[in-house]
């Protein structure tokens, strides 16, 4: 596609429910990133995928968070048993490859846990 696509754009969920956020990167981009942006905070790294290599999960805040990337393209970020502190904008980005320069971001998914 022309840019990074994320869905849904907004998600309201009840505390304790599971949610899935989807990211469709730019075609041909082998690197994919998930970040989280809370109100007034900087971007917090969550996870990085590069091709078929094992993902860098070092930024995931707890074992309630997981992500997968199927076929080297679409990625899904799953949050289990959501908590109010999970409320944030979840941003996905892709780049041509490891260290290959700039990353391009999607519009984000705004998650609200009530």
């Amino acid at each position, binding site marked *: 596609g022309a840019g*990074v696509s994320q869905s849904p754009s907004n998600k309201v969920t009840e505390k304790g429910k599971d949610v899935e956020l989807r990211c469709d990167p730019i075609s041909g981009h082998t690197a994919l*990133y998930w*970040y989280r942006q809370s109100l007034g905070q*900087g*971007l917090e790294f969550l996870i990085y995928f*590069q091709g078929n290599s094992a993902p860098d999960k070092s930024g995931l805040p707890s074992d309630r968070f997981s992500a997968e990337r199927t076929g080297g393209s679409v990625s899904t970020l799953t949050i289990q048993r959501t908590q109010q502190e999970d409320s944030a904008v979840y941003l996905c980005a892709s780049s041509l490859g490891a*260290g290959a320069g*700039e*990353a391009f*971001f999607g519009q984000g998914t705004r998650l609200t846990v009530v």
Partner: protein
Amino acid sequence: EDQVTQSPEALRLQEGESSSLNCSYTVSGLRGLFWYRQDPGKGPEFLFTLYSAGEEKEKERLKATLTKKESFLHITAPKPEDSATYLCAVLSYAGNQFYFGTGTSLTVIP
């Protein structure tokens, strides 16, 4: 750990009043420094990549420069449509993630 600090946190300018935003960084082997613009409710929009000290990039009213310790985003004769949050990020050879600063919120008053 790699670190990025941006200043000021917020900046109000009159239309046409030029100024600079600062991004100081500490990184173990700079692979690249990146500037993004973020409008409310949207994802960051890529502006520039700088790779080595002394490099400069320009786009319309914006010019980015890089030294070994900091980068500046110079805004010449800004217009109200330049109002946004400007983010700086670094990528090092030691890791996979981009480290972001907390941004400078720029408001340009007509």
